[in-house]
């Protein structure tokens, strides 16, 4: 088990290294000259030269990449100041350290994704299980058709509608806003409740459908029938036998959906004007702020890969074949 996780973690690190190299080359080598982007329209060759030296752009690509990677571990010194250990460079636009900006924005995205994740897992799997338990009844049909329709409600469509109903028309809740959890759990919870629900709607609906069909499949398996025939109660067999078997395909698909979760966070942040790293990514792209984009990319990729390792661990826990194979 431990060995399996270790292997997966090393794999994730290798992938991260490759992603950083690829993005670095794409961002700093392909599009003309980043120096132009950082100094505006009326820029003389002398200024460009200066920026080149300041950013280390006069070096070759491998040297630049090496400097960048070294900066993450030991820090770098720029003309405008010292950039401490996890150094991802300096923003072209705001002249602030990229790492500090990301640290400032990251908690919002973390709360958003983790909360949304919990919502869709609990609600999606729960309703899926209920639908499978009550297969063929009105409840099942209701849940199934509801999830079919809801799985096509995009965040940017549903978000404003919910805002209109809950916030502007009735004033049941304040407009969504991120409060650190240290400000009080209730405040944090109510501030993100609407974004969580809206963001997870599509996932919830999809996982309801998925859980229902895999549960029904599992309930028809031989071993489940044998367990029932031996006299175990329906509830016990449902949870201990069928659910466990159903979790294997669910977790597989979960692993593939993780990057979609981050994508959902981006749209959610834009829809509800929350200042997370998704919106930061969009802002940095609009401002052509390459170091910031690069930093957000790396942090986002790390986040997703970390979650992937967690999913792998869950996978190994559920399915003994993975652990031993």
């Amino acid at each position, binding site marked *: 088990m431990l060995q399996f996780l270790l292997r997966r973690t090393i794999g994730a690190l290798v992938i991260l290294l490759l992603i950083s190299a690829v993005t670095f080359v794409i961002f700093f080598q392909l599009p003309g000259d980043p120096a132009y982007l950082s100094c505006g329209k009326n820029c003389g060759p002398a200024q460009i030269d200066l920026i080149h030296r300041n950013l280390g752009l006069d070096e070759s690509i491998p040297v630049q990449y090496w400097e960048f990677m070294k900066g993450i571990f030991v820090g770098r010194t720029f003309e405008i100041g010292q950039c401490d250990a996890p150094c991802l460079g300096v923003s072209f636009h705001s002249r602030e350290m990229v790492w500090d900006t990301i640290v400032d924005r990251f908690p919002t995205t973390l709360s958003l994704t983790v909360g949304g994740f919990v919502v869709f897992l609990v609600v999606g799997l729960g309703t899926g299980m209920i639908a499978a338990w009550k297969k063929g009844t009105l409840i099942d049909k209701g849940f199934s058709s509801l999830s*079919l329709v809801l799985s096509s409600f*995009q965040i940017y*469509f549903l*978000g*404003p509608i919910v805002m209109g109903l809950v916030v502007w028309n009735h004033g049941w809740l304040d407009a969504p806003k991120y409060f650190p959890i240290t400000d009080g759990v209730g405040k944090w919870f109510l501030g993100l409740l609407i974004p969580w629900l809206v963001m997870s709607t599509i996932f919830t609906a999809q996982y309801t459908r998925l859980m229902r069909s895999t549960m029904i499949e599992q309930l028809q398996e031989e071993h489940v029938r044998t367990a029932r025939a031996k006299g175990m109660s329906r509830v016990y067999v449902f949870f201990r036998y069928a659910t466990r078997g159903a979790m294997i395909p669910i977790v597989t698909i979960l692993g593939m959906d993780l990057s979609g979760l981050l994508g959902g966070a981006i749209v959610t942040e834009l829809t509800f004007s929350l200042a997370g790293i998704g919106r930061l990514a969009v802002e940095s792209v609009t401002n052509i702020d390459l170091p910031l984009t690069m930093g957000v*990319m790396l942090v986002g990729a790390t986040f997703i890969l970390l979650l992937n390792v967690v999913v792998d661990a869950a996978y190994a826990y559920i399915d003994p074949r993975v652990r031993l194979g």
Partner: protein
Amino acid sequence: MPAGADAKKLEGRSPGQLMWIRFKRDRTGVISGCVVLFFFLIAALAPVISKLYGKDPYTLYARKDFDLLDDYGLPSGPNGGISGDFWFGVEPGLGRDVFTQLLYGMRTTLYMALLITIVTVVTGVIIGLIGGYAGGRTDYWLGRITDFFMSFPSQLFMIAVTPVVVSLFVGRNEEVPTYIRAFSIIAVLWFLGWMGMSRLIRGVTLSLREREYVEAARVAGASRWRILRKELLPNVVTPILVQGTYLLPGTMLSVAFLSYVGVGFTEPTPDWGRMFAKAGHIYENAPTYMFFPGVAMVIFVVAFNLFGDSVRDAFDPKSGR
């Protein structure tokens, strides 16, 4: 027609015919298929429809008729300015016609999605076939490359890279032509979209490779190329079509996502995704603007998902829902 002899005669049916017969029997599938077709049709006929309707998505009608918008730039008529002249209302702020905007916006998004789906499917099939059939080291490395692309945080990457691709073709401070934007979006979504198909086809090919008929062809002296083309490809058509129908709505949403975020098509090109961006900003004051694009999208995606399920059932009656 005499029912006797003709009906009794045994007829050979190709798998394609069988699939078509099964599909025709599935009422949900036929209806949803018609809805999907309807969307593509009205999108394709957008210029004709807008000519008959007498308006286009670019003209700022509020400049000609000052009564359309009030002092705050909101439609002065009830329900977002819906009337006999403006079927879906008037766009707040600029005063363009919402109906033709949606029509042309759907055209942009749907046909982009169709094009991207075709290129990703072709790429995925080629890579999957090669990996599955060649096996060995080729398969190993193709598999690693696929894994690598799959581990990208794709939506984040799309946002970051699309402007870079655009800047490859256009110098700084230059106007970006629309076809270059279209090309960049296609390139990025293509680059990040082929992996699922390639994995699927690789798996299918891997199991087909060992079948007797392939072996027989090999013994008979068929070349690799011939085996790939004549023996394997016809047998992976089913998974290609099924996966393809699932891929298309997803691609459509990705195109819309890019435009929503602001790195896709820009004004004045009409675009489905960008309508949501605008509608979200003004929703508090002008909620009607969101209604038609939103409802159209929900209908389209629901219909396409149902259609996809039916296609799968028709091809592969064994797999239940």
